[in-house]
């Protein structure tokens, strides 16, 4: 039977306090006052949909993907590249190999759920598992309501046919060109229509129709639903739909608005991932995705659901690790919503030699160094001659992946001179358990928060953005290891 075999998720550490936003923008948009409660997740300057997806993927599959992994999907409406397959970058970062199906899914808030249905429906007799990622880094203009309502985050699901933790029961899709919002090609932000119309003509007419059609196909009844997942920005919508359909109101899941905001194409799957983390065996889960119609799918958890543990603590752990951000200006800057004077140092050219990147893709994106087969010394980067002066063997190294090797900081500084989008930039000599070291950028650390010996783990992040050419360089940075410092 097809279904979900694993799950994971990621919500960025920074949580912009809505109060701070309203304090800054209330003069311009007094209507924001009612939205001043809670917090929304926001990407650090070096995060985007791709880095969040990779982190969710690591949470889901751990250090190494399953041997029978045959595909990776990445759903997002905010992919960093319009034409460079983003899923392939994620696959390299996750070390999934190159004989792999890779697919980007985009252009609707429904991308996350539509692709999921497609994969589950298509599993049929095919062997192998699929890593399904969804992420969104929401982009909104400053001082609108959306800025407060939206959030950033990612989810990951592992899909397969054996040892499923949630069996796929069926699905239905309704496709209607109902344009509650849209984002034109080459536009940064959404254009939105009136909420009351979206609620009455959209949600309340399209979703019930889909629910009726779904339950006509499956052996479970709306009253059997234990968990109903439906992201909707408009208050009370899922509750009213549940009531109309005969779904118990206790099934309706919190939309996480208070703690992270709504993460677009990833949001339904973030909610699903969170629900699976807390699920009991035998629960019926209804997932509804919205956008030019709706996707509806049903799962039933198995006994195995309680035994799966996300490697990095899942959505729950991410949500619990928030750091309140009260500086709205930092949000504006990180999202390029304000024209900052970055100084001449920021003008340093950041061109990437694509041919070099290709040769070094495993080193840079996959974070692989070498292990000497003669003396066992691990080293980054991999080199022709072993770095161990007592060995010095030639051509002796096999690939050694550092991504998941725990590390600590040996020396560090907070550098206020070099240009950084978030000064002072922290970096230091990071030494890995079992050998190897790297002078690495540190991320997700605060001023005064670094000390020699602190436990770290490596994360896949944006190294530099080449604004002139629209390219992003990705590499690995060291971040506090929440599993050890918590």
């Amino acid at each position: 039977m097809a279904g979900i075999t694993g799950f994971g998720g990621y919500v960025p550490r920074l949580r912009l306090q809505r109060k701070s936003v309203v304090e800054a923008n209330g003069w311009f948009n007094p209507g924001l006052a009612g939205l001043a409660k809670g917090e929304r997740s926001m990407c650090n300057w070096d995060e985007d949909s791709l880095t969040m997806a990779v982190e969710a993927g690591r949470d889901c599959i751990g250090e190494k993907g399953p041997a029978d992994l045959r595909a990776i999907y990445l759903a997002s409406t905010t992919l960093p590249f319009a034409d460079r397959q983003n899923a392939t970058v994620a696959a390299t970062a996750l070390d999934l190999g190159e004989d792999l199906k890779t697919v980007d899914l985009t252009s609707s808030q429904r991308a996350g759920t539509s692709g999921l249905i497609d994969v589950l429906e298509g599993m049929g007799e095919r062997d192998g598992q699929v890593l399904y990622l969804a992420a969104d880094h929401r982009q909104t203009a400053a001082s609108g309501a959306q800025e407060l309502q939206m959030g950033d985050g990612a989810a990951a699901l592992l899909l397969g046919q054996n040892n499923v933790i949630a069996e796929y029961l069926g699905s239905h899709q309704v496709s209607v060109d109902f344009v509650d919002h849209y984002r034109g090609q080459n536009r940064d932000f959404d254009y939105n229509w009136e909420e009351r119309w979206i609620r009455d003509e959209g949600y309340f007419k399209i979703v019930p129709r889909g629910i009726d059609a779904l339950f006509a196909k499956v052996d479970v009844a709306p009253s059997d639903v234990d968990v109903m997942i439906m992201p909707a920005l408009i208050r009370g919508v899922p509750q009213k739909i549940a009531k109309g359909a005969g779904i118990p109101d206790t099934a309706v899941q919190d939309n996480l608005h208070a703690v992270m905001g709504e993460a677009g194409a990833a949001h339904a799957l973030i909610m699903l991932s969170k629900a699976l983390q807390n699920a009991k065996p035998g629960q019926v889960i209804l997932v509804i995705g919205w956008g030019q119609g709706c996707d509806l799918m049903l799962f039933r958890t198995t006994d195995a659901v309680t035994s799966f543990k996300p490697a990095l603590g899942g959505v729950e752990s991410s949500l619990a690790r928030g750091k309140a951000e009260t500086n709205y200006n930092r949000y504006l800057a990180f999202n390029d919503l304000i024209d900052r004077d970055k100084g001449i140092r920021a003008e340093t050219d950041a061109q990437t030699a694509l041919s070099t990147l290709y040769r070094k893709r495993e080193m840079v994106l996959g974070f692989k160094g070498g292990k000497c087969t003669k003396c066992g010394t691990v080293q980054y980067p991999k080199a022709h001659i072993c770095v161990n002066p007592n060995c010095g063997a030639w051509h002796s190294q096999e690939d050694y992946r550092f991504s998941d090797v725990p590390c600590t900081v040996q020396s560090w500084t907070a550098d206020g001179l070099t240009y950084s989008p978030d000064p002072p930039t922290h970096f230091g000599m990071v030494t890995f358990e079992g050998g190897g070291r790297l002078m690495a950028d540190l991320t997700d650390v605060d001023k005064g928060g670094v000390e020699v010996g602190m436990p770290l783990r490596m994360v896949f992040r944006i190294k530099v953005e080449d604004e002139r050419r629209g390219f992003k360089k990705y590499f690995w940075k060291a971040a506090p290891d929440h599993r050890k410092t918590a």
Partner: protein
Amino acid sequence: MPAGIRDRVAILGMGCSKFGERWDCDADDLIIEAYEECLKDAGIETSQIEAAWFSTAIEEIHVGKSAVPLSVALRLPYIPVTRVENYCASGTEAFRGAVYAVASGAADIALAVGVEKLKDTGYGGLPQNMAGAVSNMTWANASAPGSFAQLATAYQKKHGVKPEDLKRAMAQVSVKSHANGAKNPKAHLQKEIDTDAVLNAPMIAEPLGLFDCCGVSDGSAAAIVTTPEIARKLGKKDLVTVKALQLAVSNGVESSGEGWDGSYFMTTRKAAERAYTEAGITNPREQVSMFECHDCFSITELVTAEDLYISKEGTAWKDFLDGFFDADGGVPAQIDGGLKCFGHPIGASGLRMLYEMYQQLLGRADKRQLADPKIGLTHNLGGFPHHNVSSIAIVGLEGA
């Protein structure tokens, strides 16, 4: 161990431009300023120079590539001229090239000139440029102070020094250099500072504040070298000879191997050991009269004093606080003011250090003159603590 360079080559003349924010100068103007003094000191004509070495590091912001800019600026008579770049050791590399040319017999008289015109970037601090196609993808986003600041965190940890004690010792490094630089008309910064000013300065890269960092300036320095025999024939009486020239270059052990703890320079220790052997020095704390080390940052000078085996490991911070490296201390350091007061026009710095040693040995250092110095050591450290080039030159009175 090879016989080495000791006493085989003499300095015939030296020159040094005024260092500073030379808004009035291009690189060739600075070269001329240093060379004119050097040539006059040597007492020869340009036509007598048979080979030349030219050091610049960030050539793309001033003279551009190759040795041609030097040859053109000095109208050198179609002789071999080589441009060298080896991080901050570039100036010493130019000197090494010229000295080796004379020692080998390939040239009787050779010239070394270093220059850097840094103050045309539009901002303070050293320019950060492309590090190479691969390095640009993986290297930390590090400024120079950020890279060196880490010596402090590692040193504290290793030697159990309290941060505030180390910060005070680092402050004394700078206070001492400023006291020396205040007496040097060629220095960029000629002002004394006090400890409070250092401790309260704005933070650049923790724990380095503004006064823990050397300045950025423009400058040039030059040396003409020959054999002691020719120097005497040309009428020189008191000869300053080269005792040792050593260089040690990181091979990846610090950056990707095991064992280095980040609190010292592996390269400097290796270079120092070889240099002392070459110069016949067995007790540097007693035998080295003075030194100019690469004080790009206060912490660099502090740990270098240990790496040069002048202070015992873990004790340099006390030596600095005790005034051991002051002008009237046991081994005066940065007697001309150091990089701290001269700034660091990269290609020129090594030669500028040698210039001060040369002046001191010949008793020409005016208000800074030390009593009876016999051996002077210069040291450059280019790159980053985990990835660097370290050079050491020892010069002294002939026979010392």
